């Protein structure tokens, strides 16, 4: 990389890191000229964190606790956090994924007050039987909404095929039955285990400074040392075999949806290089520049929704190819032939380089607005990495690395297939309905 480009990139990245005495990692990226600031308070606690030892006691959670906890964090003895944000004008939200929970807001005014709402609500949990019962109805509705999504059902169906016991098999939000078993004690245990500052990251980007964010942390006791938490995640053994090789269900969809999943050896925690490499390999095999994609597209076998993705969390790594097609088995066959060909002949050097170019552009793009910038910083920080390290790591990946990885991944011995077939109720053309 040219030296002057390195300077331009360093200026573009321009983030500042600090680990506070409490253990909290704080990253701030001041963005001159921007009106808003986006702040993310993230913890390494997601739907897969179901079993753990806390201070010599084992805790086993039903599916959906991390997501349930995310909802409940917005409520305390003083009322609803959204009502508090309404007094600052901030736009707030939160989300839970397989391995993290993130609380966030964007503010263009009263940033200190909004920071106080965020840090206050996440560091002062409050749960009762009554408030838990109230939330079960709303989350039950959310679960049902996802049950109607073919894309989501496809992914969760593939996880059920690929894994015997890994908690990725369970939906992030759990089920209506599993969330009915949640108690205040489970939520408090989860907070003690995973909402300790040492397990969390606070990232801010936009119209702010490190000093302003640290002052907010000080107001909430996050500058004070905390005892080391004694938490140990517990994992059931997960063999490299499949739980099932195939699964089919029917839904009101217009065409068959399909997914082909490959179970891979888990990547070491913090190994973003391996993930980036697998991602590039996917792009070389089925991305928009690949000969396979062009053939499938021209023959009308797939539409632009067809693609591949890598999913990795603790104890689990898989590569998924999903799409919709009238001939899913034909697509699967052509996909397997292409994987075999690329494994033998090596990845196309031109496509590999161009895919790296795209990823570089994406990293630069993600530094452009306050939301993406803070999200990218928080994402990498949760894995112990910086944006600058990512750019350097990306530059170091080679086609030879991809060829070597291809010798051990995407094996048909560890492949599962999931189909969602039309149940016959979706209209081929407009149906006339009777007026009520």
């Amino acid at each position, binding site marked *: 990389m040219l030296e002057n480009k390195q300077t331009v990139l360093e200026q573009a990245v321009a983030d500042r890191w600090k680990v506070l005495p409490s253990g909290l990692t704080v990253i701030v990226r001041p963005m001159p000229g921007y009106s808003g600031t986006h702040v993310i308070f993230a913890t390494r606690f997601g739907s897969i964190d179901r079993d753990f030892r806390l201070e010599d006691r084992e805790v086993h959670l039903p599916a959906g606790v991390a997501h349930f906890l995310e909802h409940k964090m917005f409520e305390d003895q003083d009322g609803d956090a959204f009502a508090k944000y309404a007094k600052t004008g901030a736009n707030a939200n939160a989300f839970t994924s397989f391995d993290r929970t993130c609380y966030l807001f964007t503010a263009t005014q009263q940033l200190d007050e909004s920071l106080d709402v965020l840090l206050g609500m996440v560091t002062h949990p409050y749960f009762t039987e009554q408030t838990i019962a109230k939330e079960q109805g709303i989350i039950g509705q959310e679960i049902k909404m996802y049950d109607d999504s073919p894309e989501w059902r496809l992914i969760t169906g593939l996880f059920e095929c690929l894994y015997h016991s890994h908690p990725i098999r369970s939906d992030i939000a759990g089920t209506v039955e599993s969330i009915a078993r949640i108690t205040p004690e489970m939520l408090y245990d989860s907070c003690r285990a995973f909402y300790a500052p040492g397990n969390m990251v606070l990232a801010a980007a936009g119209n702010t400074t490190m000093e302003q964010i640290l002052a907010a942390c000080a107001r909430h006791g996050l500058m004070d040392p905390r005892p080391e938490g004694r938490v140990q995640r517990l994992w059931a053994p997960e063999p490299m075999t499949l739980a099932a090789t195939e699964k089919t269900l029917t839904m009101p969809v217009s065409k068959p949806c399909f997914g082909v999943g490959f179970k891979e050896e888990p990547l070491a925690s913090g190994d973003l290089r391996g993930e980036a490499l697998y991602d590039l390999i996917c792009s070389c095999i089925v991305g928009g520049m690949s000969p396979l994609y062009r053939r499938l597209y021209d023959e009308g076998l797939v539409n632009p929704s067809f693609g591949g993705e890598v999913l990795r969390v603790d104890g689990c790594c898989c590569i998924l190819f999903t799409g919709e097609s009238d001939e899913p088995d034909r697509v699967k066959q052509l996909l397997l032939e292409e994987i075999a060909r690329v494994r033998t002949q090596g990845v196309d050097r031109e496509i590999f380089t161009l895919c790296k170019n795209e990823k570089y552009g994406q990293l630069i793009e993600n530094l452009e*607005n306050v939301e993406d910038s803070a999200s990218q910083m928080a994402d990498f920080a949760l894995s112990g990495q910086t944006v600058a390290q990512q750019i350097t790591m990306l530059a170091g990946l080679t086609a030879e690395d991809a060829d070597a990885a291809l010798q051990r991944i995407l094996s048909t011995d560890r492949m599962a297939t999931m189909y969602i077939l039309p149940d016959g109720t979706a209209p081929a053309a407009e149906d006339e309905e009777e007026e009520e």
Partner: protein
Amino acid sequence: MERTLIAPGVHLSCDPAEKFNRCRISIHFAFPAKRETATAHALLPLVLERGYADCPDMTQLTKKLAKLYGADLTVDARPMGCSHNLCVSVTGIKDKFALEGEPLTREYAAIALGAAFHPYLVEGVFDPQAVEIEKQMLKKALEDEINEKRIYCMRQANREFFGDSPAGVRQEGYLEEVEGLTSRQLTEAYREMLRTANIELMVLGCDAQQTAAVRDALLAELAAVDRAPVPLAKNIAMPRQQPLYKTETYDMVQAKLCMLFTLGEPMKPQELAAVRLAMALYGGSVTSRLFLNVRERDHLCYYCSASFQSFTGSMAVNSGVEHADAARARQAILKELEDLCTGEITDEELEDCRRGLLSGMSGVEDSLGGIESWYYIEVLRGGRVQTPDQARDALRAVTKEEVRSILRRLSLSVSYLLTKEDDHVGE
């Protein structure tokens, strides 16, 4: 943002937007939607995005964009009331980030203008082979609308609501017409667009010299077109009617309800601030009545929100509900509207909503997409183009009575429910 008329029916809007890492060049074509060419205009973006005369092959174009560090060429069509809007845009990182010093912005302009004005033609018409492939893609997209129940419900409700009015033209295309569409018809629809559309060239994140170069290149392209721009379609409103209740059944886990209301007469530009506050108060924010009462207090739905479309003077309320609760949810949604029209509106809730809107408007110019959407919708809406600051001033002046006046004029026209068999009996 500076906006200037550079030719009849052609404007340049530009903003150097120095703080951003990327730049964006987009060419918007706006013209009144027509029933007879709706399917052709729905297919056009797919064919234009595949390639152009200098780079006709889809895969080679993808590689070309990847070489430009993943620059993005998008050709999309968006309905804006009675207008059809086709936009060709290229977005990519600024020249200073190019690892080998490539003149990226120049390339972006060449691609955008190439895709818009120099499609790949075979014997004077769009390449028949490419057209056939993209027809299949359009068919799949139209058939797939049922897969996403929320969108399907909204579209079905809109079809009932707008009927045969110009805003009812299905700008996504008509499934039954796709197969019969020819390359010649598509080419004619394209030429008609070039001839009659109002054009907005938006150049964001480029310096004065780069902007001037894009402007001159566009004018040179237009010099070869026999231009006769037609006026933009005016904003409308559907007349009031007795509410129409319709139900469709599928095997689905959560029911979807879409309720459409009309203002009865087109929205006046000076009413926009009051409309924004009315929506935030009724159902457009987390401090709204629909969110706090129907979702949080009554637990009748997972989502329940209201939005207003100024081009058509219409309000949509969308919700995801338990099948058995659909009728109760509908009543609750209507009751919340009635309460705002006749009951108390507290200063606190009004100011909470106003504060949230003001804060959001302050951040509009923090993204390229935010800037472009804001100004282009202002242009299409007609009247004076408001900056976000001017809109904030107008919002600060809105009174409780002005908000009520907007809400009182809204009347229910269509209620569309997607639910499972047997559960709509009590509807």
